């Protein structure tokens, strides 16, 4: 794929951005004057990416804009993981009819709550002059809330359409707010809200090139660092163009990464990267693992996230120590699974795996061990595959279609190691299993729920592993191995970049990612500054023209000529 230089360029109206900057600083001012300029800009803009908001981004946005008390209950359409990340999958998702219906009902319910009698005073930028009609106030509300929902100022047409909806509804119900609710609903079901529509504009400094526009940059940063919509300050930095400059960008990155909301962003990232969305659907055979219940599943996920946040964000630790550190958190249900007392009256307590416990690092937590196992047994293969996929960015292909699994699934006899040896005799299997199984076999002291065991079916479990000549023993050996393997931090760098830009890196980004991995290593593998590091590089905002856009741009130009 190559960049298509545009033959025809128009000068950017820097003025319009400046005007928005003023408006954004005091969002209560109606934006009609500005919006005209924006409409002119849009003629030059091209859409370079369309990503559906994730469930958590949607919920965080609504709560940030309208308050924690808003009840958001809807069935969000399933997300899709591609190239290891839901973030990458989000760029391929649209909405089905039934999904849209869900969003529509949800939007109505949010509007009812936001503009209900209790809340409206705190939300409204103006007081209607009449109980039924006040188009100035309606305009003000729509442009004010709309710019926060669309993450950019609204065009005249976008405002006008909603003002008319509001007027119609208000007259019908003889109630100003009934009309405004419809307008808000219309904003909440708009593609400009439900999708992150990233726009590029001609780069004023390099003729023939495009750059991500400032509002798209602001959204990219905000959703990456905080997992939510840009706040007023970030929108202002987009509006006044300062986000395009190094100093302005650097100042915002500093602010974003120092904020306590960085925790939410990091949680969202690790939830995605470590594929923790699987806990909601986890099933265990109650006859084999009677301690398992939904509380255990939820707790196991939370333990992983608490561990990551504490070590990487709070303590600003070395990413690699996540594999080896004994420090974590437990609660009462988890203590039962780990078979230790819960010495705390609080809901969660810090906990350190004892030296003699066989456990070290995130891979020995109940979360990882139970998620990547079968309902009734452990699975060295699944665990091994996921270690490679999640932490080394090395996916495993699906098994060949003609494998006889009957022997492997007979868990009544011997240890799983013996059963897996059968694979090794089949050359079609060997190629993957010789890579996937050894790390998993090192974790075999933990059953399908992650409980410690030394025996399986009366036989002592051997936890030694040989991975292409590298030998290690047990979970701790595996932890050391991963800690020292440079593929792990490189994989994290790749995932952070891919998560931020919501795109799987291609061959052309290889060198860039290698450089970034080196910087990450040179600065001590500090995850806490990795977002900032990546977002500061020009590659983070680089524009890749989507296929088929050239003609669209050309037709837009010709339309402009006809005008």
């Amino acid at each position: 794929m190559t960049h298509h230089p545009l033959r025809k360029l128009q000068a950017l109206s820097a003025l319009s951005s400046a005007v928005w900057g003023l408006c954004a600083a005091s969002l209560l001012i109606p934006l009609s004057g500005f919006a005209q300029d924006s409409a002119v800009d849009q003629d030059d803009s091209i859409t370079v990416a369309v990503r559906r908001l994730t469930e958590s981004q949607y919920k965080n946005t609504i709560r940030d804009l309208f308050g924690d008390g808003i009840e958001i209950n809807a069935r969000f359409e399933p997300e899709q993981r591609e190239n290891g990340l839901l973030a990458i999958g989000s760029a391929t998702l649209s909405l089905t009819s039934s999904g849209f219906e869900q969003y529509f009902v949800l939007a109505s319910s949010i509007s009812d709550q936001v503009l209900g009698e209790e809340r409206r005073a705190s939300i409204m930028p103006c007081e209607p002059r009449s109980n039924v009609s006040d188009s100035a106030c309606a305009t003000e509300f729509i442009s004010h809330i709309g710019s926060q929902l669309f993450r950019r100022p609204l065009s005249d047409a976008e405002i006008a359409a909603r003002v008319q909806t509001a007027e119609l509804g208000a007259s019908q119900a003889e109630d100003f707010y009934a009309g405004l609710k419809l307008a808000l609903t219309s904003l909440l079901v708009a593609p400009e809200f439900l999708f992150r529509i990233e726009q590029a504009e001609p780069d004023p400094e390099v003729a023939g090139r495009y750059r991500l526009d400032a509002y798209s940059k602001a959204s990219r940063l905000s959703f990456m660092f905080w997992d939510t919509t840009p706040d007023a300050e970030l929108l202002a930095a987009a509006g006044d163009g300062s986000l395009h400059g190094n100093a302005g960008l650097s100042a915002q990155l500093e602010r974003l990464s120092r904020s306590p909301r960085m925790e939410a962003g990091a949680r969202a990232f690790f939830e995605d990267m470590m594929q923790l969305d699987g806990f909601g659907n986890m099933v265990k055979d109650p006859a084999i693992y009677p301690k398992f219940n939904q509380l255990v599943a939820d707790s196991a996920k939370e333990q992983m996230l608490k561990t990551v946040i504490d070590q990487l964000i709070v303590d600003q630790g070395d990413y690699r120590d996540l594999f080896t550190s004994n420090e974590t958190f437990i609660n009462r249900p988890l203590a039962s699974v780990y078979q230790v007392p819960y010495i705390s009256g609080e809901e969660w307590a810090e906990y350190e795996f004892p030296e003699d416990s066989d456990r070290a690092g995130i891979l020995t937590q109940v979360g990882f061990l139970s998620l990547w196992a079968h309902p009734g047994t452990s699975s060295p293969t699944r665990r091994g595959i996921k270690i490679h996929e999640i932490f080394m960015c090395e996916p495993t292909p699906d098994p060949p279609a003609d494998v006889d699994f009957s022997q492997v699934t007979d868990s009544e006899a011997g240890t799983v190691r013996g059963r897996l040896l059968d694979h090794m005799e089949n050359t079609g299997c060997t190629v993957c299993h010789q890579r996937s199984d050894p790390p998993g076999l090192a974790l075999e002291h933990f059953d399908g729920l992650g409980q410690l065991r030394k025996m399986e079916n009366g036989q002592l479990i051997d936890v030694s592993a040989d991975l292409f000549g590298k030998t290690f023993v047990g979970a701790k050996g595996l932890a050391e191995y991963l800690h020292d393997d440079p593929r792990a931090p490189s994989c994290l760098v790749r995932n952070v970049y891919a998560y931020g830009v919501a795109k799987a890196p291609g061959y052309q980004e290889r060198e860039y990612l290698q450089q970034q991995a080196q910087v990450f290593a040179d600065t001590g593998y500090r995850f806490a500054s990795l977002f900032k590091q990546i977002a500061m590089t020009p590659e983070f905002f680089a524009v890749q023209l989507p296929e088929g856009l050239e003609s669209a741009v050309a037709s837009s130009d010709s339309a402009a000529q006809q005008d």
Partner: protein
Amino acid sequence: MSSRFNRRSLLRGMIGGATVSMGIPLLDLFLNENGTAFADGAPIPTRFGTYFWGLGLTDTPTGGTRWVPETVGPGYEITPELQALAAVKDKVSVFSGFRAIPDGRPNLVHWSGHASILSGVAPSSTGRFEGASFDTRVADALGGTTRFKVLDIDASVSRRPISYSTRSGSTFASPDVTPLDLYQRLFGEGFQDPNSDDWQPNPDIMLRQSVLSAVTDQRKALMDSVGHEDQIKLEQYFTSVRDMENQLAIQLQKPEPREACVIPTPPNEIERAASVDVVNANTKVMARLLAMGLACNQTRVFNFVHTGGTSETYIAGNSKIYHQITHDEPTDAQLGFQPETSKLAGLVMEGLGAFLNEIDGVKEGDGTLLDNCLICAFSDTGYAKIHSIENIPMFLAGGAGGRHKAGQHIHAPGESVTRVSLTAMQLAGAPVGEFGDGSMRTSRPVSEVMA
């Protein structure tokens, strides 16, 4: 596409005018346009209801179950206490093993079980739920366009009216308790005959349309500058919007005559006795009225109580009531269950059988009214002798317009009852992704029964 723009320009003209009356003239404008645009193919709506009966079914700790089928999955066998469901068995899914999990709160007898099913939370005191019952969420999604958002019916002939439907958790609905009351409500004053000539469109639907047209107005601006892949995604989005616009437009048309809708004659007053034969007769009569209420589009959501949690029903001539018998009757050593209790459970299930047969007896489209319903039937307890809230019998009946893969037995010991509640909501089309609290919080519907 063009019709929508026309409509908007009409709207602009109207609103631009100084003295606009938003009454009927405007409605006519909408209608004139839509009347030709969507002349055929109105979809049959999905209806939703709950059906409650008291005192569970027989499944004892000694192992003698009288209701849980042995077969799991499709084609389950009819067990003794499910006999009354035989005629509609392929339209009913059976859920066994599900339990209410109070997370340390006490088991409030004859209360915690159905409170958990309905509100997703085990309550801390009898007489209250800690949250709305889930039928209200379905009513919010389905019930907006009919005369009654929801109908509450109590056939139990109890001392006080029984309803478990609540929005606040403390105030419960006031049900109709006699067939005559129900008849008056449905077909008395204010009845809108869908087959009569003076049909009126619902102005709320037009308002919803205007919400969407504000969105689709921006379509061109949005589609102008996107690449191929993004264009496909946005096209799908706008197709979804259009599907919804079509749905709304259909609702603005005068509906096709509803052949199924035949206004019934007023019922006779029934005997005021709580014996099971009277309650079942009452159930049948009220089910028939309800079925016509649904067929005549008076409501799309209902809650039906057959007998209350502390059921007062009894076999006529017997000095002991059912509730007492569940507690005092010993388990028969040979049979492995309480014979009298099981007999009563079977009689009580005849109520559910009669109810479903009535709904299934109304032809609608290519199938029956039941095919377009999703009815969630459940009780307050599992093993009533000890007020167990484990293995509470639950059923989902009806095809939900094709969404319900009915006729299955789902056996999931230890799983939360809220999973079935969530499944019911989603099959009915309510926008709910998560339900319940604590250990009963779930985002996992029972996917096996979802088409």
